[in-house]
C-alpha cells in the first residue's frame, strides 16, 4: 500500500466481482456526502458576493425549517401508540 502513488489512495473504489455499477454508485455516494460535485459546480463560474450572501441565507433558513419540521413530526408520531382503552 505504501508503494502506491498517493493519487490512487484517496477517492478510490475497488471493483469486486466485476460489478462496475455498484462500485461507481458507492464512489458517487461518498463524493456527494462530502459535497465534492457541489463545490466543483460553484467554482465553474464566479459567484458574486451578493449571490453568495443570498445562497448562505437560504441554506441556513432551509436547515432550520427542516430541523423544526422533523421535531414536529417526531412529536406528533407519539400519538401513534396502542389504545389505552380498547374496550371503548
Amino acid at each position, binding site marked *: *500500500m505504501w*508503494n*502506491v*502513488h498517493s*493519487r*490512487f*489512495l484517496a*477517492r*478510490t*473504489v*475497488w*471493483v*469486486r*466481482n*466485476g*460489478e*462496475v455499477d*455498484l*462500485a*461507481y*454508485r*458507492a*464512489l458517487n*455516494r*461518498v*463524493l456527494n456526502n462530502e459535497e*465534492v*460535485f457541489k*463545490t*466543483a*459546480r460553484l*467554482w*465553474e*463560474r*464566479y*459567484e*458574486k458576493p451578493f449571490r453568495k450572501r443570498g445562497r448562505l441565507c437560504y441554506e441556513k433558513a432551509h*436547515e*432550520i425549517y427542516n*430541523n423544526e419540521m*422533523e*421535531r414536529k*413530526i*417526531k412529536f406528533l*408520531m*407519539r400519538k*401513534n*401508540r*396502542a389504545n389505552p382503552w380498547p374496550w371503548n
Partner: protein
Amino acid sequence: MLNHLFSRFVPLSITTIQQSLRTLSFTSIQYKRSHTDIREGTVREVNLHPENIQTPLSIDVDKYYGGSGQVRETDFEKLIGDTNNPEVPQMKYEDLPIVHMKCTRNNTIVDVSDCTGQQIFRTSCGVVGFHNAKKGTTTAAQAVGIHMGNNLSRRNMKHVRVVVKGTGPGRLMAIKGLQLAGIDIVTITDNTSIPTLHVGLQRPKKMRRV
C-alpha cells in the same frame, strides 16, 4: 447562540427538586442535523431485526458503503491477472496501465498511459465520428469506451485502472463501454479538480446569462 441565552436564566438559590425541574424547563433547543429515529418515545419502538446491529468492532465495511467498493490495505498488495493463464505473470497494482477520462459538458476525452505516465493512446468523441453538440451525450461516451476497449485488447492490456475527471454525461457510460469491450476494471478513482483558496488563485469567468 440560543443555547447561550437559555443557559443564563438558570436560578441558583432553590431546593434540589425545584432546581431540577427548572433546569428541565430551561433546557436549550439544539439546532443540529437530527438523524434520530422517528419512532423514539413510542410503544412501537421495537428493533425488528436485532441481528443487524453493528458494534464498532464488527462493522461490515462492504455493507457500510452500500455493497461494494471499500478499499482495504490488503487490496493493493494483491496480484492482478488471469489465474487460468499460467504463462502470463500476474501484475502488481502499481504496474497497471491508467485510463484517464476527462468528462466535460460538451465532450469526453479518454487517454491511456503507462504506469510511469507515458501516453500510449488517445481518443475522443470526435475521433469516433460525432460532431458538435452530439459529442456531449451518453451514446457518444459509450462509443468512445468501446473504441478504447478494442484498442486496449489488441495491445494485450486487459487489466486497467480508471481515473475519472470532471462532471459530465460521459462519466458512467465511458466506463460501461470499456466493460462491454471486455476489459477488466480494477479500480475507479475520482480526480475532479476542486480549486483551493490560495494567494495565486485565478478568478473563474463570470456567470453566463442566456
